[in-house]
């Protein structure tokens, strides 16, 4: 049933495209972000209604049922996921989007009239498959279904070159003649490429790869828009491709890495593989009561939250500790590393969940000069983002990453689960510094003890 003529269809798609731009634009400020996201969702709904009213479609009951199934799977998962598991969920949603783009391209192949359209199909098919498989591997890494360390094996470089060559060959066959077997081969090669792309990426770099794959999916969607002659897909896909590229570079810059270094660094061997062995050098550990005294009689305390806090769901407890210290007239702030948590900005989301006021959160560049006048820096479940090796050890995997310079504070307290190295797998010299005190245990349990001890002072 066609209720809308092509002009009205184009106008409605244009409105939807503007909604998507407003959605991204709204994310430039926490005040407008939520409204922007809702505008984006409204645009998507408008676009879906438009496609039903403007095209000649068969199988409508089946399509509606499939939409219902997709919504019924995704919405409850998205509603219930814990904030700490956000990165892997984003990876999962990105992957299925890439998979959908690849399938759409595959089904359009028999209708492709000329070589240009087949080129766009080959591109979508390959990039969509890369994004799907790559995202599934990042999901497995973040969910810890597999090791988070870089996986490198002899011959990986050769295999990668071989797969890339095969992809070009299969792609060429698709573009020239478009047989189904070549398209399916290209999709399978794309899946293999996605896996090979992400396997050598380790630990803290995984979120950056999610962002990169997100940009890839955007490009695949844009190319499928060229195939279907649909302007909205072209605009939306290109927007995501462009914004995803910028975001990937910003995230890499925040960690002092280059995107090439993240993707191909492990091929050079050695440097990205750290140690998982706990050190047996002596450290000074203490009780919650002693550390509470240290905190309770300080003038200025800076809290440095990391992923360990998030895993332990300790964000509410640290907010209570902040309140208890402030009641004693102590100046308390949070120093937030751009990549604290598992994604850039992740820690801000977690602390916002615990109602920590925005103005207590100090970004790294402003926090670092302040450590020199800080009495106690309390590091909760963070290791890599405060590790001085980033500045002092050229061979270290995190070398060049900007860090929070907690070593400048008069006293440093680490709440740590154990002496095992952090995400990047490297030892932290600061733990062995004479002014450092450690409190071992789960971040939330330790914070609860500290809170009780501070209240009892």
């Amino acid at each position, binding site marked *: 049933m066609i209720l809308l003529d092509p002009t009205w269809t184009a106008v409605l798609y244009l409105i939807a495209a503007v909604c998507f731009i407003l959605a991204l634009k709204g994310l430039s400020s926490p005040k407008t*972000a939520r409204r922007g996201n809702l505008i984006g969702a409204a645009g998507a709904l408008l676009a879906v209604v438009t496609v039903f009213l403007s095209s000649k479609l068969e199988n409508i009951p089946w*399509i509606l049922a499939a939409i219902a199934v997709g919504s019924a799977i995704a919405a409850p998962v998205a509603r219930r996921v814990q904030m700490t598991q956000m990165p892997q969920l*984003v990876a999962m949603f*990105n992957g299925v989007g890439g998979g*959908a783009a690849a399938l759409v391209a595959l089904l359009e192949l028999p209708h492709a009239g000329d070589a240009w359209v087949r080129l766009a199909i080959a591109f979508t098919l390959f990039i969509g498959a890369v994004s799907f498989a790559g995202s599934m591997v990042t999901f497995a890494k973040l969910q810890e279904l597999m090791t988070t360390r870089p996986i490198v094996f002899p011959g990986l470089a050769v295999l990668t070159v071989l797969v890339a060559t095969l992809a070009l060959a299969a792609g060429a066959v698709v573009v020239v003649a478009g047989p189904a077997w070549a398209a399916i081969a290209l999709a399978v090669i794309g899946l293999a490429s996605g896996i090979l792309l992400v396997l050598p990426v380790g630990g803290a770099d995984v979120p950056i790869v999610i962002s990169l794959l997100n940009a890839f999916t*955007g490009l695949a969607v844009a190319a499928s828009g060229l195939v279907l002659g649909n302007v909205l897909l072209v605009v939306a896909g290109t927007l995501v491709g462009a914004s995803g590229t910028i975001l990937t570079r910003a995230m890499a810059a925040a960690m002092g890495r280059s995107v090439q270094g993240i993707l191909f660094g492990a091929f050079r061997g050695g440097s990205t593989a750290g140690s998982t062995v706990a050190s047996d050098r002596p450290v000074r550990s203490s009780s919650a009561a002693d550390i509470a005294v240290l905190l309770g009689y300080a003038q200025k305390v800076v809290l440095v939250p990391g992923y360990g806090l998030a895993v332990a769901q300790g964000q509410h407890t640290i907010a209570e500790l902040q309140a208890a210290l402030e009641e004693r007239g102590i100046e308390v702030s949070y120093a937030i590393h751009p990549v604290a948590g598992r994604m850039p900005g992740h820690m801000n989301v977690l602390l916002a969940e615990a*109602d920590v006021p925005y103005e207590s959160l100090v*970004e790294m560049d402003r926090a670092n000069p302040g450590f020199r006048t800080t009495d106690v820096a309390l590091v909760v479940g963070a290791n890599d983002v405060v590790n001085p090796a980033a500045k002092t050890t050229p061979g270290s995997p995190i070398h060049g990453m900007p860090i929070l310079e907690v070593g400048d504070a008069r006293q440093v307290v680490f709440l740590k689960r154990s002496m095992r190295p952090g995400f990047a797998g490297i030892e932290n010299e600061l733990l062995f510094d004479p002014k450092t005190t450690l409190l071992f245990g789960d971040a939330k349990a330790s914070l609860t003890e500290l809170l009780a001890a501070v209240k009892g002072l």
Partner: protein
Amino acid sequence: MDGVALLTITVLAVFVGFEVVSKVTSTLHTPLMSGANAIHGIILIGAIIVAGQAEDTVTLVVALVAVVLATANLVGGFVVTDRMLEMFRGRRKAPAGVGEEGER
């Protein structure tokens, strides 16, 4: 639509994408990634079109799988982003200065 017009739109969209995102603070990088992720779920439009044109069962089944995947991306993406942004609401004090920081 002819190729040059589509190319023009593509190039303009690249610039809009760069322009819009270059101002986002690192505070909002995670929601931004998630929001952009939701937007490419609009591939659902393409999946609906191929499913609506399917003439044999195999094509229809594959197309419906694409519809399910694309819907999951679209719906899940917007819901998860909304949940993240919900966290930025409910400050104890009005977020004075937040706006300026974002607009910089």
